[in-house]
């Protein structure tokens, strides 16, 4: 995995006890891990609704709308994991994926969200790759990710839900 964009402190690492644990959506090229269906089960069971995997036949199939909908549905951080540049089975899939992520980042910037809520990660090959190991690394590096402002209960909402 290229570490270029992973592990950079993109959000303030402050989390109060009342904050919910961060939720992740991980879109990934399934060419990376032929056993992804099996490999991701343990992590899905462990983290429950905190993680959602979305295998793609190629990362080039990603659309800005997929990323937007994942954020809207409650993810605090959305990753797209692609094959290394130059290693796409369909030649240009991961190049297109990068453009789509950049487009989606501009869209959320327009509504005042941090563009880093969407992140493209180039996996590094050759070598054994499993999507669960990659996901664990991404989650660990995200650390005390601040919740998306969409998932922070407003005072009125919070008061309403207090028993």
């Amino acid at each position, binding site marked *: 995995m290229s570490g270029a964009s992973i592990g950079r402190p993109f959000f303030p690492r402050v989390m109060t006890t009342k904050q919910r644990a961060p939720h992740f959506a991980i879109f990934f090229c399934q060419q990376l891990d032929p056993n992804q269906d099996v490999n991701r089960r343990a992590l899905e069971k462990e983290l429950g609704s905190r993680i959602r995997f979305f295998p793609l036949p190629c990362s080039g199939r990603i*659309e*800005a*709308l997929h990323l*937007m*909908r994942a*954020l*809207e549905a409650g993810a605090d951080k959305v990753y797209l994991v692609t094959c290394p540049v130059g290693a796409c089975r369909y030649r240009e899939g991961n190049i297109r994926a990068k453009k789509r992520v950049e487009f989606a980042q501009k*869209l*959320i910037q*327009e*509504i*005042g*969200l941090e563009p880093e809520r969407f992140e493209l990660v180039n996996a590094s090959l050759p070598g054994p790759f499993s999507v669960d190991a990659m996901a664990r690394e991404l989650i660990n590096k995200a650390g005390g990710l601040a919740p998306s*402002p*969409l998932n922070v209960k*407003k005072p*009125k*909402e919070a008061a309403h839900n207090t028993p």
Partner: protein
Amino acid sequence: MITAERKPLPEIKESITPYKKVLIVGCGTCVAECASGGEKEVALLASALRMDAKKEGRDVEVHEITLDRQCVYEFIDQLADLVDQYEVVLSLGCGAGVQAVAEVFPKIHVIPALNTTFIAQTKEAGVWIENCRGCGDCRLDQFADVCPITRCAKSLFNGPCGGSKGGYCEVDPETPCAWHLIVTRLEESGRLQKLTPLYPPADWSKKEGKGPRKIVREDQRH
């Protein structure tokens, strides 16, 4: 096709500020082809507006629909049972679409979310170029199917200005000189004599000066 670009989000937000129930209406024809007003763009805008409202703690309902064509009554009819449930329609159609919807539903506020730009050709994926002004007096045949009115920055009818460099326009060095294209194409097809006559100025009365233009085809009418 007619091209358009989405207005900046702050402008759209401001225009719908007073409303709590918003219907975004897209168009599946021209503006879908130029990736500004089709189903995908409608969904993206709806998602962005919903997230923005949630972030700011505002209660706004945003729903989506895309018509095959927003400028034709038969398609606009699909909104008939829907539009009353909303306070405003945010149109992702071209100017013709916005006005057609507003005409059919005079009581509802219809707001354009696109800036309609020009008549274009899809040059390549993600690139659209203006190549027709809709002048109403087409002479493409005389100019090797390259419109000097639209594609020459100076709209010259009788030869190049002399300022082009290497076949590109002096006004915009990324744009091929229309007259370079015209002469080259006529030369290659042995039709250079097309340029012998002097062409009178275009008849602009067919485009401007008489208000909005109208085409009537009796054989097509009910």
